[in-house]
């Protein structure tokens, strides 16, 4: 791979990065759809609604009128968003007071609860559905192993990248499945409310997520949160000089306002070791050090960010609550963030909350029919692509929920209203299946 002299094209590098984010999102959605199909087909119309923090205001029952359901759903979602806002502000406060250790322990604890209890419950559902003759000792040992290694994977920064990514996707899948158990109107209202909240929290100057990101940037610290980071695209070029030119990808350049270059190199690394030897190469090969173009630093330290203003385009994203049941109701708050940003290594980071709510949307669509699943999946991926493009243009933390959720919901209702009728009629008349 390092032998061929052909430089990678912009399309390949861009495409590779997009794929590395779209793939895990797709996997998460796919698994939630499978879970929903398997587990909900058995208990078809038994209203297996969960009474949880998201339904304390109003618990939907199928006998209510539409208007009641609508207002109840709105009330539920408002309460939920209010709780999330409060929790996010608490998290910002804790981060401001430098209680990072506490946040990390909390994150580990919530990961353990999600993997252990939620994962255990879903595994029990599957065992009951398929009548798997597993005994309790084996089950407990396996579950304990699974949860413990998962906690280590999100806690410790140095586990195999694949394992960490896999566990994050799993956590997203489990929480998303739990959310699909909410009553239907509440789910849709919740999605809309959270999309709006995300928009406000990340973009408004008083928004908690924006405060969090600015704090993290100003302190050069990492936000202790569950965030999925795509593996940075590593370029293997034999001639670094050419490599730098080809790696100056258009969508990552920023005009530098002033010529001062702070010690961005060190501040940018987030505990990911960057080989210092290659930095020398870049210094010599970059023609004008005080140039107006800045390039993103890849993991091997071969491209540098020189941006005095925005030192570390970080993740940021809004806090997001995933309560579950009567158990620790505020357990996973704010530890799974939504939104999208660039990691210090130039890799794209997507908050786990985005995974969860995309999957919730698709899971809900799966409860209706597979047609809506396809439509919503395409809409969400398109929305994600648009968000990535905006990320490339604006180079700052952006909310990843609004565009995708808006497109997803729009396509869900359009499919349900128009496409279904069309396809059904075509099938009935043997025109198209």
């Amino acid at each position: 791979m390092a032998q061929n002299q052909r430089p990678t094209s912009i399309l390949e590098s861009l495409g590779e990065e997009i794929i590395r984010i779209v793939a895990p999102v797709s996997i998460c959605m796919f698994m939630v759809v499978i879970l929903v199909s398997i587990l909900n087909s058995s208990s078809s119309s038994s209203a297996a609604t969960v009474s949880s923090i998201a339904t304390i205001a109003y618990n939907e029952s199928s006998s209510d009128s539409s208007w009641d359901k609508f207002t109840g759903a709105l009330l539920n979602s408002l309460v939920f968003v209010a709780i999330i806002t409060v929790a996010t502000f608490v998290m910002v406060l804790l981060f401001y007071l430098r209680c990072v250790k506490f946040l990390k322990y909390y994150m580990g604890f919530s990961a353990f609860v999600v993997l252990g209890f939620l994962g255990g419950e879903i595994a029990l559902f599957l065992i009951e559905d398929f009548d798997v003759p597993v005994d309790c000792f084996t089950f407990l040992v396996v579950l304990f192993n699974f949860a413990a290694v998962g906690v280590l994977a999100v806690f410790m920064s140095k586990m195999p990248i694949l394992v960490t990514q896999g566990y994050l996707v799993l956590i997203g899948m489990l929480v998303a499945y739990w959310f699909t158990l909410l009553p239907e109107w509440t789910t849709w209202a919740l999605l809309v409310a959270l999309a709006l909240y995300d928009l406000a929290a990340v973009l408004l100057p008083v928004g908690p997520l924006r405060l969090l990101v600015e704090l993290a940037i100003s302190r050069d610290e990492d936000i202790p949160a569950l965030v999925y980071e795509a593996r940075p695209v590593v370029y293997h070029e034999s001639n670094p000089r050419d490599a730098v030119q080809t790696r100056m990808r258009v969508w990552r350049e920023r005009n530098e306002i002033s010529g001062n270059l702070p010690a961005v190199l060190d501040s940018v690394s987030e505990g990911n070791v960057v080989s210092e030897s290659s930095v020398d190469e870049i210094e010599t090969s970059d023609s004008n050090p005080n140039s107006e173009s800045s390039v993103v630093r890849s993991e091997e330290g071969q491209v540098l960010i020189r941006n005095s203003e925005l030192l570390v385009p970080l993740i940021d994203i809004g806090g997001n609550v995933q309560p579950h049941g009567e158990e620790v109701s505020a357990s996973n708050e704010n530890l799974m963030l939504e939104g999208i940003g660039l990691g210090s290594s130039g890799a794209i980071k997507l908050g786990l909350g985005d995974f969860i709510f995309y999957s919730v949307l698709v899971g809900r669509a799966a409860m209706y029919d597979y047609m809506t699943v396809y439509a919503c999946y395409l809409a969400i991926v398109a929305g994600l692509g648009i968000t990535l493009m905006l990320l490339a243009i604006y180079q700052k933390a952006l909310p990843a929920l609004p565009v995708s959720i808006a497109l997803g919901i729009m396509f869900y209702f359009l499919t349900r209203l128009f496409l279904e009728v069309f396809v059904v009629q075509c099938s009935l008349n043997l025109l198209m299946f």
Partner: protein
Amino acid sequence: MENSQNSNSNPNPNPIRIQNLVSSPIAVLWPTIDGSLGLSEEESVSYARRFYKFGFALLPFLWAVNCFYFWPVLRSHSFPRIRPYIVGSAIGFAVFMAIISSWALTFAIGGERLFGPVWDKLVMYNLADKLGLTGWS
């Protein structure tokens, strides 16, 4: 050995090395499966040791992750300090898997004929019903 391994804790100021980097890539052997994104050799020793020791807390999966993470160590013999822990993890994982799978298979295949009424008490779906674990409390 110094030439074939790279450790990030030693930024090599050797100009010949950089020259090599410019003209042709050095074949670097990383101890972790993540390659250049993973750990350096010094950090690897402490991580491998820690994973190995934690695995004794009934966590064979951690041993498996250890083997997976340091797969290059298992494949090549050029990391003498890390290798004992990884080999130990591999052996521990194999032993544990043998024990657990034999028990689980005996339980599953033997069923009631082998165990008698105890089987019903031990099997997971009955236990879940009895304890009401799937009521989504």
